[in-house]
C-alpha cells in the first residue's frame, strides 16, 4: 500500500507540473485531509447507533440465528473462519444492510466484522484471506434498492426512475461474483509473511 500511495502522490505532482496546477494541488491536499476528518467524525453518531443496536441484536441471539441460516454459504466463502465465530454474524449483518441500501448501517457492521476477523489474524498489519475477500465483496456491494440513484433519477424527471433496479442488481451480482473469483485466484500471488514467531497466537 505504501508503494501505491507514493506512486499516486508522485503521479499527481508530475501531472500538476505538466498542467501548471501546483497551487490547486496544494489546496487539494489540505482540503482532502480536512474532509477525511469531517467524514470520519460524521460517521461517529450513526456508528454508535448501529453498533449499539448490533450489541442488542447479539445479546438477543438474533445475529447468531442469522449466521446459522447463512452458514452453508459462509463456510464455503470463508473456509478459515469457524462457522460459529462472531465474525460470521457481523458479516451477514453488513451484507444484509448493503443489500437494503442502508449504507449508514452497513459500514459499522462491516467494521465490526473486520474487527472480529482480526481476532483470527496471526499477523497484525497484514490482511488475511478472509479480510481481503470480505473487503473486495464490500466494494462490489450487491444492492436490491439503489435508493440514491432512484432519487437522482426522480429529481431529473425520469418517466420510470426505478426501471434500472433489475439491471443494477444483475450488474452488481456480476461484480460480486468477480470479487470472489478474483480473490480466490489472486490469493496465491500475494502470500502473507510467516506469522511473527515472537508472538504465537
Amino acid at each position, binding site marked *: 500500500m505504501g508503494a501505491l500511495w507514493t506512486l499516486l502522490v508522485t503521479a499527481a505532482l508530475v501531472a500538476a507540473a505538466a498542467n501548471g496546477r501546483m497551487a490547486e*494541488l496544494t489546496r487539494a*491536499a489540505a482540503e482532502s485531509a480536512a*474532509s477525511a476528518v469531517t467524514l*470520519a467524525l460524521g460517521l461517529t453518531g450513526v456508528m454508535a447507533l448501529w453498533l449499539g443496536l448490533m*450489541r442488542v441484536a447479539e445479546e438477543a441471539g438474533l445475529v447468531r440465528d442469522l449466521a446459522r441460516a447463512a452458514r452453508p454459504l459462509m463456510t464455503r466463502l470463508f473456509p478459515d473462519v469457524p462457522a460459529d465465530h462472531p465474525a460470521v454474524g457481523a458479516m451477514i449483518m453488513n451484507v444484509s444492510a448493503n443489500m437494503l441500501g*442502508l449504507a449508514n448501517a452497513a459500514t459499522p457492521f462491516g467494521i465490526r466484522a473486520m474487527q472480529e476477523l482480526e481476532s483470527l489474524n496471526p499477523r497484525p498489519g497484514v490482511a488475511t484471506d478472509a479480510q481481503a475477500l470480505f473487503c473486495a465483496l464490500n466494494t*462490489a456491494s450487491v444492492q436490491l434498492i439503489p435508493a440514491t440513484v432512484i432519487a437522482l433519477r426522480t429529481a431529473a424527471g425520469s418517466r420510470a426512475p426505478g426501471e434500472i433496479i433489475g439491471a443494477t442488481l444483475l450488474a452488481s451480482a456480476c461484480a460480486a461474483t468477480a*470479487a470472489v473469483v478474483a480473490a480466490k485466484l489472486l490469493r496465491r500471488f500475494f502470500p502473507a509473511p510467516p506469522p511473527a514467531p515472537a508472538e504465537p497466537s
Partner: protein
Amino acid sequence: MLRAVLDAVSAWAIPVLVAGIPLFALARRVKVYPAFVEGAKQGFETAVRVIPPLVAILVALGMLRASGAMDALTRALAPLLGPLGVPASVVPMFVVRPLSGGGALGVVGDVLRSEGPDSYAGRLVSVMQGSTETTFYVLAVYMGAVGISRYRHALPAALAADLAGFAAAIAVVRLVFGP
C-alpha cells in the same frame, strides 16, 4: 406500484429496525439499554481510528484530481471505450467511480441533466453507479479500522470486481433497454 413499494421500503426500513431489534431483544429478556450503551461506546473509538488511513487515501485522490491526471486518464480511455458502447459523457464514471463517492454522484447528476435520465447514457450511468461501491474508500475505512497496511490481493480483486460490474452494466443496459 413498484415505485410505491420501493418508496415504502426505503422510508420504513431504518425506523422499523431501530424499534424492532430492541423489541425482539426485550421479548428474549435482554437488558436492552445497557447492551446498547456498551455497543455504542465503540462507535467513537472506531471513527477516530479510521481518520489517519482515510486522510492518506483522500489526500492522494484529491491531489490526483486537482493535478489534472484524472482528466488525462479519462481522455485516454475515451477512444478505447467508445467502440464498446460507452458514450463520451459516461467515460469519466470509469475513472471516478472507484475513487470518489461524491465525485461519482456528480458525474451521474451531470449525465442525467445533460442527456436525460431515460436516455441510453442516463440509464448506463445509473446502473454503473449502483453496480459497485467506492472501492478506495471502502478499503481505507475497513482495513484502517483494524490497522492493516498490507492489503494483499484485496485491491486487485476489488478492481477486478469494478471492471466486471462496469462490463456487466454495459451489456445489461444494451440488452434490456437497447442502445
